[in-house]
């Protein structure tokens, strides 16, 4: 498949791994945070951690939107789903995420009309076909997913479809990165920035990381060659004492992103004063809500929500995993009380969560057995 096969070449991977061996300084550990859960998934699925020299330590960041949604918002979603007039639509990933009152899947088992969709446009189609029902879309995700919500709301307004609304939980990438950079004892040397978020927002939102915090950044895609190439670019920057925002994903990401997508977001959404992130706490200006003039399509404006705040389970250390303070296998309940079949924390629920990636690819404990490059 074009744009996939060439980025999974074993021969090229070996060349890049060999280049890394020549670039690293023995004994100088370089901690690279891959911000996006998709990158974590690729690193373990393709065995990249075993391919790179031991001086390179991948630290898993907060870029899994399913993992950072607080339990109280899941309970709000369940409360909406349990309304008799509502068809509650969601991406499949959110179905099993536990809130304080169970999951959406359990609500569905109790009789709530919860349906999985692949796009908010599918939810809008459900609204067209069910004019007597209220169709709500559980809008979650970073700037990659937010434009689909924006386009859907704009279409609903243009067509005068009043029985569709979005329960908006979209988040933005910059503020949590700043929160991590401001955390005491930070040991991250450089950042692998998310590719598809950058497709929308461009590379400018990362400039502050290089300018104000002195950390190199490389935007990259999700194939193994992409991540290895980005790792080489970051290690080169660190070796040469450079500190820049570089773009490895040039086939899709432009410096200014997609201005039309940004305009659609600005037309439909505005920043919340603050938003709770699981593991990171409340972060100012880190999430989006629909603009007041679109209140007719805003589930938060149209329906009453419990709005309860729920503490994470005490045994769960998702918060520390999300900021890279511990590896998944260092969590007390990893692989024992918390598994993908019976998750306690969201990092194990989402297929992109760091814990699920470790568990599914056999990283039950730290192993660095490697094949000579």
């Amino acid at each position: 498949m074009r744009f996939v096969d060439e980025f999974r070449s074993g021969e090229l991977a070996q060349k890049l791994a060999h280049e890394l061996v020549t670039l690293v300084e023995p004994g100088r550990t370089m901690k690279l945070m891959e911000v996006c859960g998709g990158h974590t998934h690729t690193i373990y699925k393709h065995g990249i951690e075993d391919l790179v020299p031991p001086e390179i330590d991948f630290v898993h960041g907060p870029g899994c939107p399913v993992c950072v949604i607080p339990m109280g918002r899941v309970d709000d979603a369940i409360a909406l789903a349990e309304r008799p007039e509502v068809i509650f639509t969601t991406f499949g990933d959110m179905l099993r995420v536990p809130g304080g009152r169970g999951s959406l899947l359990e609500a569905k088992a109790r009789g709530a009309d919860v349906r999985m969709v692949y796009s908010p446009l599918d939810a809008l189609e459900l609204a067209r076909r069910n004019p007597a029902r209220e169709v709500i879309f559980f809008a979650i995700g970073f700037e990659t997913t937010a434009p689909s919500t924006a386009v859907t709301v704009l279409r609903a307004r243009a067509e005068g479809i009043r029985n569709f609304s979005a329960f908006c939980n979209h988040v933005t990438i910059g503020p949590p990165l700043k929160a991590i950079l401001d955390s005491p004892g930070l040991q991250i040397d450089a950042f692998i920035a998310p590719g598809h978020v950058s497709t929308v927002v461009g590379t400018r939102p990362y400039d502050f990381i290089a300018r104000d915090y002195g950390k190199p950044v490389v935007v990259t895609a999700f194939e193994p060659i992409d991540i290895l190439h980005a790792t080489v670019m970051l290690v080169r920057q660190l070796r040469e004492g450079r500190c820049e925002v570089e773009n490895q994903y040039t086939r899709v990401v432009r410096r200014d992103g997609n201005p039309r997508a940004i305009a659609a977001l600005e037309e439909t959404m505005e920043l919340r004063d603050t938003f709770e992130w699981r593991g990171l706490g409340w972060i100012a200006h880190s999430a989006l809500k629909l603009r007041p003039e679109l209140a007719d399509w805003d589930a938060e404006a149209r329906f009453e929500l419990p709005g309860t705040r729920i503490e994470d389970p005490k045994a769960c250390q998702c918060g520390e995993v999300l900021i890279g303070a511990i590896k998944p296998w260092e969590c007390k309940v990893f692989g024992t009380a918390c598994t993908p079949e019976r998750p306690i924390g969201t990092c194990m629920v989402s297929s992109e969560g760091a814990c699920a990636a470790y568990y599914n690819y056999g990283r039950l404990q730290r192993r660095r057995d490697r094949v000579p490059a």
Partner: protein
Amino acid sequence: MTVDAEHCITCGDIAVTATVVHVDGATATVDVDGARERVGIELVEPVAVGEQLLCHAGIALQKIADAP
């Protein structure tokens, strides 16, 4: 969009490459590895048959340049 069971659609990493086969207003029919799907193209218009798009959650996010 077509996704495999390993990936999470909420995260944008599963955005896929699709080839335009038909354009109908603000919607295009695209080919994704042999499967036909319909995506919104408001954010990347105008598009032509044969162009490659990066698609996620039912919309096209960007046109794809030739790989370097």
